[in-house]
């Protein structure tokens, strides 16, 4: 036991400060870090089967942009029956093919090309043929096709989103 009261007081203060600091970092710092890092943990979700529209509203071979209506969760907000995303639908007889409107390059929405049939991105001019295959521009892959099925005359689409800017299709929910 140290004789000098000053030294022992300083030692005690040091200990208390250290303990307080460690506990503070552990008890508050770790939860705070977890809070800040939480968004990074949100991983790929499953695709969602969403009702698009009636099959007879699609003309054969003619692309149509359709918004998919579903519930949408964003942090604390749950919106009922709002536009989740949009797809390009093309009818071929009794089946329908669907592509996400999201450009695989950097995420703008592709639109129908003004001149030739097919799609073009308004941001960096990636262009795609009517089958969604990339023709020119910076897009690293073809348009992302989505699964569809037709049930009692209604087109359903399995809506998904993918990572942008990479050659592979990686689902992000």
């Amino acid at each position, binding site marked *: 036991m140290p004789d000098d009261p000053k030294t022992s007081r300083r030692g005690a203060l040091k200990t208390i400060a250290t303990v307080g600091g460690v506990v503070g970092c552990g008890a508050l710092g770790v939860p705070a870090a977890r809070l800040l890092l939480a968004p990074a943990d949100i991983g790929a979700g499953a695709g969602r089967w969403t009702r698009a529209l009636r099959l007879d509203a699609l003309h054969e071979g003619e692309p149509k942009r359709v918004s998919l209506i579903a519930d949408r969760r964003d942090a604390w907000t749950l919106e009922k029956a709002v536009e989740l995303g949009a797809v390009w639908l093309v009818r071929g007889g009794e089946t329908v093919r669907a592509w996400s409107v999201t450009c695989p390059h950097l995420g703008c929405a592709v639109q129908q090309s003004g001149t030739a049939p097919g799609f073009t991105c308004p941001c960096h001019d990636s262009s795609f043929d009517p089958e969604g295959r990339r023709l020119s521009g910076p897009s690293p892959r073809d348009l992302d096709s989505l699964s569809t099925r037709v049930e009692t005359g209604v087109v359903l689409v399995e809506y998904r989103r993918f990572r*942008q800017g990479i050659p592979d299709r990686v689902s992000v929910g």
Partner: protein
Amino acid sequence: MGDTRWLAILRASVAACFAVLVLTGVTLMTAYAPSPQSAWASVHYLQYVLPGGWLVRGAHWWAAQALVLLSASHVAIGALAGAYRKPRQFSWWLSLLVLALSIGEGITGGLLPWDQHGWWARVVEGNIVGLAPVLGSWLQQMMAGGTELGALGLARAHVMHVVLLPAALGAALWARRSLERKGVGGATNTSSSRFGALEREVVAAAGIVIAVSALAWASRGAPLDAPADPTSEYPARPEWFLLTLFALREFFHGAGEFWGTSLIPGAAAAYLALLPWIDAPRPNRPNRVLLVAPVVAIFAGAALLGVFAWRKDAHDKQFIKQHAKAEARAAAAIQLAMVGVPPAGPLEMMRRDPELRGHDLFEQHCAPCHVLDGLGDPKKATATKLDGWGTPAWIAEMIHDPDAPQFFGRGPYKGEMPSVDVRPKDRPASKPWKPMVKDEADKKALAEFLASQGDEPGDPARALEDATRATAERIVQERCSTCHLYKGQGDDEGSGLAPELSRYGSLAWTRAQIANPATAETYREGALDESRKKHMPRFDSDLSAADIDLVARWTRAHARAIPVR
């Protein structure tokens, strides 16, 4: 040193911008509410409703542009003047930091109104961050607040914009100022004209405040685009100070994209940061012209690329069209919000508006078969053309020639409705035939009367004389009701194909027809019979009652060329 004089003036101007930004920023924060539901609405409120809000917001916006421009100019002139040389290297690095933080403030601030321009620019920028190796997609999610740019992303941009970046920027400016005061930052205090230098700085700072206020006044505030809509089509473009990077993307595709669009600006930044060593006094120091050439190349190249991108858009017909469409949407949203935005946010406001929502619904659900107001393809339409539907002119034409291509000619009802004044071709000459209307005047009266069935309170008044009304009603009851219902009465006792004529074209009739044509209110049971392929389907399974109401209002109003209510 003439060059350092300019640098001092620029530093004073940057400090003045920062002061304006802090003061206006804090003022704006008293009305700004950062959430996807409220951000746009609160910025709209600031810009268009709160007295003086537009001016404060405009000053903030212009001061932000000036901050980037002046910080960049300070770096450019500093590089040319050799202001990076020891012992001023710390001041030089702080200047680079000030430029980077200014750009960071511009990027985070651009998202805060949560409008189309800011949102889409940020989505693209986030995806560019996501391209970075190793940490890219982690960083992207941290910035966006999840896999999609949403509420947490906005909250994060907000805290960066109003706390973290301004604190860093303020600290950097203060540190630079301290270095200058100590005499290691600049040469001004060794000059004999110390008082003159201070005077110049004060004049420059005052000039900035005046210029920013004048610009804010002249531009009536700052731009506000339509509310951010993740499912819309939008030709995204970055802020002007990032146009250079945008243009750079033009030259690098595929695997080289990340490196081309990150390494080149990265190398430029590194060159500037390393100038104190590159241009250090040593025996074999390269010629100064050689050292300065890259600096000129960096700034001239950046400016040229930016102008290149801007000019390309200015000559791109499709971009001009998309841009005009986006501007029209912004104007409509701004107008709608003047009476207030619902708590669910501006997108909900637009979803409830008959003009905007009705148009979108018609385009998606009705235009595959019908034509109205430029929507739908007249060559492919199989159902009635709706331009003029419910007006006397349309009805007069229709009852004269029901099988014309714009009426029933291309649909399942072809051949079902006889003309009121043309003898049927298949009727043998031996059989007697009498037109349903005896002359043009009666036909006109009938058309007027039927059109009046669809009138709603608030529609333009229709002068229909009692005699005309009586004549027309008699024709309807005597002749039309052979096939049609009128006020629920008809000769076929409800089993026929022809629709109810009372209230024909009214809002209630239109709603009923869209929801389900096979009710006694409109076309009756036969309308959905399997034998009538391509008949109008019922939409009450696809659309909510609210949406049916909106599209009915839009259709009826546009058919009659009256305002949508």
